[in-house]
């Protein structure tokens, strides 16, 4: 879209030129604070991070060039591997489940009833819950002995897990917690559903008596742009999961490193042991992984995302 705008700008008649020059100057001037900020807080630090990643650097004292030693150390660090495994599992399980649940909720919400507004509000509320407060509440809710969730489950005759105390269950608990604030994803899907033209939807109803057919062949293809959007954002964010993991597992990923996340190990390296070079190297690895995944998703997106007007 930005490209189209620039083409129009380039093709505007020469009469506009003179006014255009003042506009161009103003454009740069208005963007200047941001360009300075972008350079100081993003672009230059990005380069420096890659530089620090190749140095031994403990904040005090000068950085000492060590080449790829930090990366070798990361490769040999079992805690990095444990945290990477946890983070990967967290992301690959929580993101798809969250998308499916959000889509289901959006489908349920996509009808006009007296309570629609109420439901939408309720599903959005958890997103506003500060992550620290939300995590703390979940620790209490899921208290294995005396938390209300387990008391209720036991009353129903079930054998609930020890949630946050059992190393086998703790990561799943973290995933469960991440599913709670799915309001944003739901509202994005709902926006997509409400944009589906009425005639398309009605034609589909006439063509087939099975609602499933419509869902798979009409509804889903039409909201693939929203699926892509939620998927990319979800992947990027879940690889950086930190606050919930730190509140629940502390810096050691209690219990037994089950909730140890990549960002927590990185945080420890940088701000507990002040091993900046090591932490910077970890940051560049995260950057690389997220970059590759994002590019992969966008690359495959061409074959499964439908943009309206594309084929016309």
């Amino acid at each position, binding site marked *: 879209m930005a490209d189209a705008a620039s083409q129009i700008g380039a093709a505007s008649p020469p009469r506009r030129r003179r006014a255009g020059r003042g506009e161009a100057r103003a454009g740069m001037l208005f963007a200047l604070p941001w360009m300075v900020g972008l350079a100081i807080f993003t672009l230059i630090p990005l380069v420096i991070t890659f530089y620090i990643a190749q140095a031994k650097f403990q904040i005090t004292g000068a950085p000492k060039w060590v080449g790829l030693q930090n990366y070798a150390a990361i490769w040999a660090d079992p805690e990095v591997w444990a945290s990477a495994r946890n983070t990967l599992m967290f992301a690959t399980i929580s993101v798809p489940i969250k998308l499916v649940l959000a889509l289901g909720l959006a489908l349920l919400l996509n009808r006009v009833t007296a309570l629609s507004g109420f439901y939408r509000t309720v599903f959005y509320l*958890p997103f506003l*819950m500060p992550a*620290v*407060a939300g995590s703390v509440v979940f620790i209490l809710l899921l208290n294995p002995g005396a938390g209300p969730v387990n008391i209720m489950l036991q009353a129903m005759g079930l054998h609930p897990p020890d949630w946050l105390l059992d190393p086998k269950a703790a990561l799943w608990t973290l995933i469960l917690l991440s599913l709670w604030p799915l309001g944003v994803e739901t509202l994005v899907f709902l926006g997509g559903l409400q944009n589906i033209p009425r005639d398309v939807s009605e034609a589909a109803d006439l063509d087939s008596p099975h609602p499933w057919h419509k869902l798979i062949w009409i509804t889903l293809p039409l909201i693939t742009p929203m699926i892509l959007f939620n998927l990319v954002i979800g992947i*990027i964010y879940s690889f950086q999961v930190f606050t919930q993991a730190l509140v629940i597992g502390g810096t050691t990923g209690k219990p037994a490193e089950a909730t140890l996340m990549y960002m927590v190990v990185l945080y420890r390296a940088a701000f507990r042991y002040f091993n900046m070079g090591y932490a910077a190297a970890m940051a560049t690895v995260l950057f690389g992984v997220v970059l590759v995944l994002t590019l992969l998703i966008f690359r495959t997106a061409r074959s499964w995302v439908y943009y309206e007007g594309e084929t016309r």
Partner: protein
Amino acid sequence: MSDPALIQPRRTAPRKLGSMLIYHALMLAIAGVFLLPFYWMTISAFKNNAEIFANPVTWFPDPIRWDNITALLTRDDFPYLRQFLNSVFYAGSVALAVCFSCSLAAYSFGCLRWRGRNLVFGLTVCALLLPGIVTFLPVYLGWTKLGLNGTYWPLIAPFFCGDAFFIFMLRQFFLGVPRELMDAARLDGTSEFRIWWQIVLPQVRTALIIVGLFAVVYTWNEFFGPLIYLQDREKFPLSLGLFTFQAARAKEWSTTMMGAFFMAMPMVVLFLLTQRLFRQGLASTGLK
């Protein structure tokens, strides 16, 4: 879909009533699951420890322990009021900074044509997708060198330059301002600054409020930055204060829950009052 009566005319009335009941029962059950943490937080805030862990579960505090509020506000190791005000200051400053700086950049990207614009905007979108930590460490070292570690400077100052997400969001609104409006003013010889201030900004007033709201919510919940830069309990915002308290006093649940309650409430109330704006803002970030 939006009008079932039109789509399925053959359905008889009683069946429709039945499916309606099932629908609402299902939705209310889901809503209950979503609200349970809020509800449990609220009632636990007004119980003592024994009552919180009572078996069977008690769904309403009896008695309602109002003194939990004073207990929270008078603790030496958890200066709650102070931290609350810190959060207000932090969120307010960031919101104001963002509204100002991002409206400059978004105006430039959305309404003005200049060479290099698409490149800079492209970089902005890339910055949006960048994991924050990959630029964080050098910036941290810089602030430390300046001696500003331990203050709110590193947490607020960058927002005076702008923020990729909010610029992106505001630009969507600026794109909707009709170009004729600006061109007419230009023909009259109005300066570009006055066009921005007197003609364009009033057009996007709602958008600015939306961006301010999102900035408040974002900053109120922000945890990583304060965790790194602040060491003094008196300077903590609530997110960090509540974390520190819970980590140190894991057993004092009623105080923790009261703290969480008063941390969540301002956001919930703010949202309930401004719901429509929130949804409009969300719609703007999706997919353009």
